[in-house]
């Protein structure tokens, strides 16, 4: 009798131990949602625009785009993107207000996609460069990514104009 109850108890423990452990494994065929930004390094100018795209979402799913602002506050972009029939979406982040008000300052930021309850789905990274700073204060990755000082761009433009005139 005792043996029976012991066996029953072992069985109960086994059942509980397996049923209470959540199963996180995703179905093998599921496509993992992604998010990407273009360009991945961008100059913080008032006309800065970042293209954000994603795939692997439920068709018709509303996708919120999140980042932590300069204060560290989690911020959602005003408009949600909606995944198309193929589960992909694209959005443009017009950064004018965020740059002008220093809600975004220079540095490397995580850009996240999230569902309507703000559960993060996928994450990518974007580098923002404060082009008003002295070139010597720029991070290596900013110059390596080909970001230029606005003056340099203007000079370049003038040089091109000059060349055209000569031609």
């Amino acid at each position: 009798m005792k043996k029976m109850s012991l066996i029953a108890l072992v069985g109960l423990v086994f059942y509980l131990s397996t049923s209470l452990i959540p199963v996180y494994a995703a179905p093998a065929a599921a496509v993992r949602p992604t998010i990407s930004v273009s360009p991945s390094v961008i100059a913080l100018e008032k006309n800065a625009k970042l293209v954000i795209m994603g795939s692997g979402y439920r068709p018709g799913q509303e996708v919120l785009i999140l980042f932590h602002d300069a204060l560290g506050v989690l911020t959602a972009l005003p408009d949600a993107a909606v995944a198309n029939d193929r589960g992909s979406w694209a959005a443009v982040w017009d950064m004018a207000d965020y740059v002008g008000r220093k809600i975004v300052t220079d540095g490397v930021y995580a850009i996240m996609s999230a569902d309507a309850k703000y559960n993060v789905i996928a994450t990518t990274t974007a580098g923002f460069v404060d082009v008003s700073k002295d070139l010597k204060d720029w991070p290596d990755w900013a110059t390596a990514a080909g970001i230029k000082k606005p003056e340099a761009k203007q000079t370049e433009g003038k040089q091109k104009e000059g060349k055209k005139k000569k031609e």
Partner: protein
Amino acid sequence: MKKCGGSLLLFLLFMVFWWAPSPGHAAAPFYQGKTIEILGESRVGGGTDTMARIIATFLPKYIPGNPSIVVRAMPGGAGAIANNIFYAKGKPDGLHLMMNSSSPISLQLRSRDIAKYDLTKYSHVGHINRGTNLLLVRKDALKRLTDPKAEPVVCGTKEGEETWMAMGLWGREFLGWNIRWIPGYSGTSDIEMAFQRREIDMFGTTNAFIIKRLQEEGSITPISQGGIYKNGKFIRRKDFPDVPTFVEVLGKKKPTGLPWQAYMAWVGAGDVDKFLVAPRNTPKQYMSILTSALEKVSKDPKFDEMVKRMVSEIYDVGIGEETTNLLKEVLTVPPEALDYGRNLQTKFGLIADKKK
């Protein structure tokens, strides 16, 4: 063997209780692992948005369970778009909040058709009053303000309903100020950009951060301030002691009777300023957590430092019922006083919808 079996039984019983959800788990704070959304009714970077961000920085620290907070802007219609949606569809689940401003108060007060909400019905977390508005004029446009033959000074506004608009409207009526209004801007942030583009010459704001920046640039002159109403008098802001109150500017031309009653009704919305609300009928259990947290935030020296650095050197915080009562007070105005203000708007080319 018997002893061994007993120990095994005890061990197995321990395992069962260890695996089973503990009562402690059930008593975990409601907000643990959750995200609260603060919807902002104006554009990113404006005063309302900034206040939402500052509160979002500190609030999680004082809510048991330390939830995440996300700030999301929903600008447009001087706060009417966000309020209409939040009022109709906001979930009273303790996870949805909205940072509001005096503009939606003015919209509701003047019975504008676009306002489909009742601010007094929200569940109120608290309010932060940043002082009083200042009316700013571009330095090189100042002379035109009192010269009726000159090109009018162009004033930018959202819906012509802001608290500071009272100074412009009553200044136009009783001091003969030469002003032309352009409505339709989405927020103070948008209006300031229009000022920078030289699209407008005049606007009003409470935001000391904006005012001082423009003063440093040398582009503006604050000509008047609404004043803080205390003991029957309007007094100057401590951080702008040299800017006269509008009553001082009016001097002997200060009206009495209905016109003044209407002015007082108009500027009353500014007493609330920025206020944090939850949807209607949000259960008390959530509201007491949220109001208690905001009260603790208001006493945090780092919060004080941040508000003073980013928004205003002077501010007042009200919690829960204080906000409810203040809102009820400013939204209770005699109809004839509202009509007077509405008529001024119509007279000077600002849209004034018919009464509801």
